[in-house]
């Protein structure tokens, strides 16, 4: 497997300069991270065993490029921005995998111009809303309640990647800023109308969901399935919202099987 490298792109008329992590060998996939920033390191490594993984940071998150989020007004801009980013990477119609907030964006990208996404994998994506199953706003959920909301193992070592610890000032700033930048596109309720666009998705789609996801109950897996033509659902027994951190190998195998199949 090729060593991981990092590339800084110039996108959106030279106004946004995201860092992209590139690793692995094989057909290309784009991985879009969730609301806490690019923290799914082990999953990327696992995916790299089968694919060339391109993992961009969402606008504004890259160190030194914090103000660039201002160049994008809304979801429409963000979707076009990602086509621009694909072009800069020379990707015509890659498989796109996204988790949580990244899954919501992946869905929007696949629905807006269906020719730009070859295959689509949504891992516990945000983007839909049911009044009978309201989604907690994890950005303002008390820190003490986050482990139970997001993790299966409430002492998992990767919990520190999402925990605001005033003793770790750099981490505090990094996590807060990532939540702020991604929050821009989903505040105050993560429903920007994706439901009415889902029918446009042409890419073969896999929806992966943890059966014990407390943030996004698995009832939402069915909502996505109903909206996306031909979509398949893979429910993970005992899986929580942060599966990419807790079960990277198992998750990567599921993703690889679908994309290669």
């Amino acid at each position, binding site marked *: 497997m090729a060593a991981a490298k990092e590339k800084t792109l110039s996108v959106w008329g030279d106004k946004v300069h995201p860092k992209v992590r590139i690793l692995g060998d094989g057909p290309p996939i784009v991985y879009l991270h969730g609301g806490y920033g690019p923290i799914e390191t082990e999953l990327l490594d696992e995916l790299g065993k089968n694919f060339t993984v391109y993992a961009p940071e969402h606008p504004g998150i890259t160190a030194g490029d914090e103000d660039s989020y201002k160049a994008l007004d809304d979801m429409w801009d963000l979707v076009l921005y990602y086509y621009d980013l694909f072009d800069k990477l020379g990707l015509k119609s890659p498989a796109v995998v996204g988790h949580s907030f990244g899954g919501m964006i992946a869905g929007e990208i696949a629905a807006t111009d269906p020719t730009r996404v070859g295959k689509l994998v949504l891992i516990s994506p945000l983007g839909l809303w049911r009044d009978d199953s309201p989604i907690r706003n994890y950005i303002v959920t008390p820190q003490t309640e986050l482990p139970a909301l997001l993790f299966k193992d409430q002492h998992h070592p990767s919990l520190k990647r999402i925990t605001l610890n005033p003793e770790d000032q750099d981490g505090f700033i990094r996590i807060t800023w990532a939540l702020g930048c991604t*929050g821009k596109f989903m505040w105050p309720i993560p429903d920007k109308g994706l439901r009415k666009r889902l029918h446009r998705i042409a890419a073969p789609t896999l929806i992966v969901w943890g059966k014990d996801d407390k943030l996004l109950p698995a009832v939402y897996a069915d909502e996505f399935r109903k909206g996306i033509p031909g979509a398949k659902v893979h429910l993970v027994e005992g899986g929580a919202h942060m599966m990419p951190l807790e079960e990277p190998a198992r998750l990567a195998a599921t993703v690889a099987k679908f994309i290669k199949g």
Partner: protein
Amino acid sequence: MKISMFHLMPYRDLPDDFAQKYHSVWVDPPYCELADSVKVGQYYNWTLDELIHAADKGIDGICVNEHHQNAYGFMPNPDLMGSILARATNGTDVAVVQMGATLPTSNPPIRIAEEYSMIDCISGGRMVAGMPLGTSQDVNLCYGIPPIEQRERYYEAHDLILKAWQSPEIFAWNGKYFKLPMVNIWPRPIQKPHPPVWIPGSGSLSTWDFSARHNHCYCFLSYWGNNFGKRVMDGFWDFVAKGNHDPNPYRAGFLQLVAVSETDAQAEKDYYKHIRYFYDKCLHILPEYFPVAGNQDYKSLVNSVTKLNPQLFDLMNKIPAWKYKDFVDNQFVIAGSPATVRQQLMEAVKKLRVGNLMVLLHIGSMPHDLTIKNIDLFCSEVLPHFRGVWDGEWDNKWWPESLKGPRKQMSSNGVHAAAR
């Protein structure tokens, strides 16, 4: 020196176990469990009566502000209160200080330009235009504005309001957040070119910069005493110096809790339980709400996390164990006999270099009668000693022009001769 009475309009009767039973005083305290609308009606009327009483007793200005879904202060539209206060204080030389209508939550923001103009017209040109960015709780959590957009919306609303007040021509506003094809507000303010602008802040680097750049008065609204306040105000004065503005103390406002009684010992008897109520219940805010991620821009976030927060968290963690003496010694509240309050308040004003002081004379659960006592003692025993401070040396460019002269004489019963 100008001193204005600030009022938050808190719910004065939260249950004893409030902080144990509920996780936040703001955003999600359940109204139907906690509040009684008949009582609330009484509170609004007391709030107005207390501010009007302070005006009668010679205070320089009276302030109201805006909060939402907040048991410690719930004047969702401060302009409703301000218009009553303007009417009730006509004939006096007291300023109506709107601290004020929150810019990013008012859509379109010319609504504020219109309402402030109404208050300025009703009051005969006595209004100060506070222009708050708004808290994260109010703007992001209660009113649904994305945190990271709040400041941009604020800047745009500010520019739009100032232009709407001043432009003799009808104009089109094609902004990022607001699009208005024919801006031509009726009425316009009496004060020309526009009422003085005060910017309330809580220590964000960007707000210091903004206030200094626009030559507005920056007001640090803090409940954490003037020692922490000095740290924030020093940061503001740095920006003033960098911007080559003069160090006019009237550029700066500060909010201080003040409680006056006959003696130091009596002050403790009168006020301690209300001070406790304020810090234990009114400031019982879920840390995740304050502020929400994205609410501070990156520079301000870094400054807060590395410089301000450690000191603030340290202070806040100590409060539960504090006794009356600690609140007073740390000057979270300047409290005591008139002589004590005079001396400590004077030191604070000089230390912070503040020309436009705001005093919170109603604190937490204070009943109406005690509030009146505090106002009476403050206005008769403390206020007169501050009249000449900074004057002769500096011009208060951030005060209504018509109110800049010496204050009118009071009649023997302490009521403005001209009032009513």
